[in-house]
């Protein structure tokens, strides 16, 4: 691959999307990078813009949502400046995605093997024979039992976990530089969830896969991510290495998320929740969007938008509190 280690494989700068009609922003000023072989986790509540982020990167935004600003650069190739066709060319080759709902993400009337073969033939120029052989290899790689039999199965003949493995095989068929996984385990039951996570970790180890892993489950994040981005109401709340997120969270929202994880060891108490709800699109504040729910809010929080400031070398938070309720001087690009 052409990427050098010091250079990110994916770089997103100032990505902003808005509803086409009302111009209400869905995502605002999202910036982050993924290094080769790195797993970046994205966490947030429902409605925080996680899935929109994934679709924006794929160039698959629904027509009601537009990207209004920002650059997306994949391995030196600026997708946002090229044509829609160029982006399409990139999808299924350099950029692949697995979705939340394995039950509906596969074509019900096409054999699963063919759905893998399709990528190999149409996007990577394999011949029919080679493609079938490679599809078998991929099904084996994603640990589908007796792949020779399953290759000609229809999706309805497979369980949810198996279907998600097929989806992963389809994504890997592209041999992507970056794989985006949008809540790939949410729809599965817990044991299958653990198996799929193991599989993704194995693929990452063996293939050096760069992964953007979206979830609302902090437990899953702890298991797989190197770095974590916390989204709140379409804005980045915090971004930091996974250990720092769990050990020294800076944003009150991150702290509240961590506090809401039930403690399985100590005495049982009431579940900790965060009061209030994520604001709806179109009714969002320009100032700190978490301020209505924040126990630490000051007057500045209700007046100004907190920029993403560097708290330490690799941890940044969009909050005035770590800076003594002053504007942070340094903002991350």
């Amino acid at each position, binding site marked *: 691959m052409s990427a050098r280690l010091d250079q990110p494989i994916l770089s997103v700068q100032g990505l902003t999307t808005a509803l086409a009609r009302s111009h209400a922003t869905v995502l605002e000023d999202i910036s982050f990078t993924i290094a080769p072989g790195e797993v970046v986790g994205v966490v947030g509540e429902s409605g925080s813009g996680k899935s929109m982020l994934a679709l924006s990167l794929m160039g698959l935004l629904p027509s009601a949502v537009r990207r209004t600003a920002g650059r997306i650069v994949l391995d030196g190739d600026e997708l946002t400046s090229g044509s829609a066709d160029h982006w*399409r060319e990139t*999808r299924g080759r350099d950029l692949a995605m697995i*979705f939340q709902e394995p039950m509906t*993400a*596969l*074509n*019900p*009337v096409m054999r699963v093997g063919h759905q893998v073969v399709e*990528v190999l033939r149409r996007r990577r120029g394999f011949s029919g024979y080679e493609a079938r052989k490679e599809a078998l290899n991929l099904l084996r790689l994603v640990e589908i039992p007796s792949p020779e039999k399953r290759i000609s199965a229809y999706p*309805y003949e497979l369980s949810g976990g198996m279907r998600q493995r097929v989806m992963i095989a389809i994504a890997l068929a592209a041999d992507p530089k970056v794989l985006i996984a949008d809540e790939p385990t949410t729809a599965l039951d817990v044991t299958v969830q653990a198996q799929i996570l193991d599989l993704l970790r194995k693929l990452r180890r063996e293939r050096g896969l760069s992964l953007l892993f979206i979830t609302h489950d902090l437990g899953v994040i702890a298991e797989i991510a190197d770095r974590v981005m916390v989204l709140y109401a379409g804005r980045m709340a915090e971004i930091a290495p996974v250990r720092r997120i769990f050990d020294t969270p800076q944003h009150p929202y991150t702290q509240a998320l961590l506090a809401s994880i039930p403690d399985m060891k100590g005495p049982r108490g009431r579940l900790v929740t965060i009061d209030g709800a994520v604001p709806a699109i179109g009714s969002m504040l320009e100032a700190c969007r978490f301020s209505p729910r924040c126990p630490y809010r000051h007057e500045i929080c209700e007046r100004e938008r907190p920029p993403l400031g560097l708290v330490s070398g690799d941890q940044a938070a969009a909050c005035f509190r770590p800076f003594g309720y002053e504007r942070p001087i340094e903002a991350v690009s």
Partner: protein
Amino acid sequence: MAQFLVKRLVGSFVVLVLVSLMAFAIIWLVPGDPTSAFLDTGATPDQIASLRQQLGLDRPMAVQMLEWYGRIVQGDLGHSILLNRSVTAAIIERLPVTLSLAGLALVFAVVLGVLAGIVAAVHHNKWPDQVVMTLALFGLSVPDFWLGIMLILLFAVKLGFFPTGGYVPFSEDIVGWARAIIMPAMTLAVIQVGFVARMTRASMLEILNQDFIRTADAKGLKRAEIMLRHGLPNALIPILTVGGIVAGALLGGAVIIEQVFSIPGVGRLIIGGILSRDYPVIQGGLLFLAVIYLSVNLVVDILYAVADPRVRLE
């Protein structure tokens, strides 16, 4: 799959038994005496009685019914007194005419309807969609007999492209057959084109919103590939059902169109039978239409299983 087919076959058989029972009952349900159709008003009671005996109308109903079933399982639909020949032979003779008319109309309806529906769905809410939907509504609203007459006036009488009516057998003269059949088949198809186009559009729009279409898009497939390889095969499943309904409607419609274009098909035979109370012809025609309709739906069921692997399980 085999079980599925057996179930359908049994269902079809039951329907056929019921239809033949209805066909048999026509004589008893319709007011007036069947013999009055064949004898003039001045017929003596003796003449009527002898005709009733000849037709078997004087025997108990149960006996008549058993006889009727005994005959039709042998393919004997009775003897038309007006034509003075076997009804089965008359239907078989006219069968190719009606089948080529309804068959060609079915091809037009499905091909044009599906194409128009895809165009509309792909350009959802843009001008091609509106044009297609307006034309489809027009096609659905225009009475076919009126359209047939207008087409005859324009293309046959004024422009002379096609004959005003009649039929040339396919085996005798292909060009003549095509010239005779295209306009009636088109006329017959117009309503169904509109129907199929609307159904295809709705079905495609629903499918294009499904998750697996987004998966196909994420694979970086071209838009046409997504539509034809992932969209259409799924959208066609409900359209197949529509195809069965359309085929049935076309057979019914053929009766009128054969009249408008003076085509000597089964439809005209049946209308002739109805107008002159030629009961064996009416009964035979009814049974014949039912058999065709059931066969078409059986074919649709089989195609259903071909198109949708999930059906094969049930």
